[in-house]
């Protein structure tokens, strides 16, 4: 079976004032065509770094791929030239960013920003590219696309801007769409609309989606498989429904228990909202040969502090990096 994307033992190092820290440490996963894979974890766990690495957009001079491979369609992107990466970015792999307010260029029209991608990758003429930009805006359900196409970003609402971003990302019908917290900056009703839109567009275009989020609800709704990240390492990987039903890593368990549930009758007794105690370790501790979650874990034993846990595989496709995975 051939995967669309295969990431093998990826290690990304960031140079900080305190030295070199592995912000992604030994990460492996695969992505199949048309699939939605979700990355979950708290801020600073390496979700966005993974996305930037896939795009070849790690911050210059600060971040680099230190080891491992990113194999897309049989081609190793970690070894590819800048020129080759430019040809892939926005064309085969494209990305939607977290902040629709600041991610669009304020001094160019929406139409120009969409048409530009088409001109760069598909060699379309100005006129054809513009016409296609209108169609794309229509496809992401911006009403009256013909008039809105010559609007500037400041003339649009947050939700509309994110739709325009999606139109821009899907312009060249990419094989992979990376959505880095696409709804964090939007209000709840708009969030739901954006997720609906992404699902519909995925079904139409067959693009695989990598959804980066910390919204468990979004994961449950959109993704088939999920990867839980903690401190630059993979904590757990598997089918979404399996993981939510029976998490095998104490961190995943904590994350799921953190999600509040609505009750129809608030007067009946309900559980307290659980939190994961403690804080994320600092970058300095990222490389250590131990379980990085140990200090916050209820299942802590001697083994957790002396060696990094192995990956434990389960029959249902789940795998967890925890010494106590079977016991949980």
């Amino acid at each position, binding site marked *: 079976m051939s995967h669309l994307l295969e990431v093998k033992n990826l290690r990304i190092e960031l140079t900080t004032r305190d030295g070199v820290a592995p912000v992604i440490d030994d990460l492996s996963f695969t992505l199949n065509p048309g699939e939605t894979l979700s990355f979950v974890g708290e801020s600073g766990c390496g979700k966005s770094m993974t996305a930037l690495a896939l795009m070849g957009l790690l911050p210059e001079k600060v971040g680099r791929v230190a080891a491992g491979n990113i194999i897309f369609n049989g081609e190793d992107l970690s070894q590819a030239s800048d020129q080759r990466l*430019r040809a892939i970015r926005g064309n085969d792999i494209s990305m939607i960013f977290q902040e629709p307010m*600041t991610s669009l260029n304020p*001094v160019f029209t929406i139409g120009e920003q969409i048409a530009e991608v088409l001109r760069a990758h598909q060699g379309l003429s100005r006129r054809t590219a513009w016409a296609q930009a209108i169609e794309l805006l229509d496809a992401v359900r911006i009403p009256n696309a013909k008039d809105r196409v010559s609007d500037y970003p400041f003339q649009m609402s947050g939700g509309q801007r994110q739709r325009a971003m999606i139109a821009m990302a899907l312009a060249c019908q990419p094989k992979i769409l990376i959505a880095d917290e696409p709804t964090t900056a939007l209000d709840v009703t708009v969030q739901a609309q954006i997720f609906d839109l992404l699902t519909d567009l995925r079904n139409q275009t067959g693009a695989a989606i990598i959804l980066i989020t910390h919204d468990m609800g979004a994961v449950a709704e959109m993704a088939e498989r999920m990867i839980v990240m903690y401190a630059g390492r993979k904590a757990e990987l598997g089918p979404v429904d399996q993981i939510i039903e029976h998490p095998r890593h104490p961190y995943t368990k904590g994350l799921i228990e953190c999600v509040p549930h609505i009750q129809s009758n608030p007067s009946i007794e309900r559980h307290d909202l659980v939190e994961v105690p403690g804080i994320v370790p600092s970058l300095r501790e990222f490389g250590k040969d131990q379980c990085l979650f140990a200090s916050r874990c209820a299942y802590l034993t001697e083994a957790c502090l002396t060696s990094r846990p192995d990956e434990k595989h389960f029959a249902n496709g789940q795998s967890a990096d925890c010494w106590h995975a079977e016991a949980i």
Partner: protein
Amino acid sequence: MGILRIIFIRVVYAIALLLAVIVLNFSLMHMAPGDVADTISQSMGGADQEILDEIRVSYGLDQPFIVQLGRYISNVVQFNLGYSFFYNQPVTKLILERLPATLLLVITAQIAALLIGVVLGVISARKPNGLSNYVVTFLALFGYSAPVFWTGILLLITFSLNVHWFPVAGMRDVTIEGGFWVHFIDVSRHLFLPAVTLGSIFLALYSRLSRASMMEVLGSDYVRTAKAKGLSENQVVYKHALKNALSPVITLAGLQFSAVLSGAVLVEAVFSWPGLGTLAFQSIIARDTPTILGILFFSALVVIIGNLLTDLALRLVDPRVGGNK
């Protein structure tokens, strides 16, 4: 809001502002000791009080201040800036003869400083720790701290006296004959050193500001988006980043327009450039009040027009200016 309406409103403001400038200038000149009568009597080798009074009556200087002011304003409104006894010419004619030379110098210096400054700023912003950055920073610091007349004289000695690349003074060589291009080249050669001298201070300002502005923009989200689209490095920098980085530079350039104009006085004096600056200098020495007032009026006019143009340029670069929905 239509662009015509904006221009109309601005012109109304400009007229009010000009009127205020006229009143202020006239009052200041009136308060200063000494007047035309003194200068004339001096050139005659002295005169008694009777003759002085006679001269004052003939120039209307015996009238109360408010009457003089009223007369002056009503004259200015009719584009009559008075008569210069020193040059024996109407002031308007005198100024219009000199204005083109100053505008040529000021605009050339300003545009050259802007273009070169922005390019240098962008180059040093792209490699903040590279050698080019240090060279640009050094040049900027040097240009900004050296006084114009000193830079001017230094350039004059080096390039006109020692190596004879450029003429020493003036705007054109009267002995030269030929068509338009011959004169064009002649004027350009005369223009080069004064423009470089005047531009050097502003080049420093613009390169520093565009460097800072560019560095901020290069770290913004939309530049990352542009990279994620797979655009080439040059498109990312010169299209997406530069257009955003330009706004503060244009604003500063507009504000600096008056400084360029006053800087031109010194530069014109050093290079004997036959512009308003030289005229202002001479008429101050001669206490030629109508000419001084006329020059101040025209300077205010030029600055106001410069600011209006800046405002329009900003609208062109940044659609958010003015919030025109």
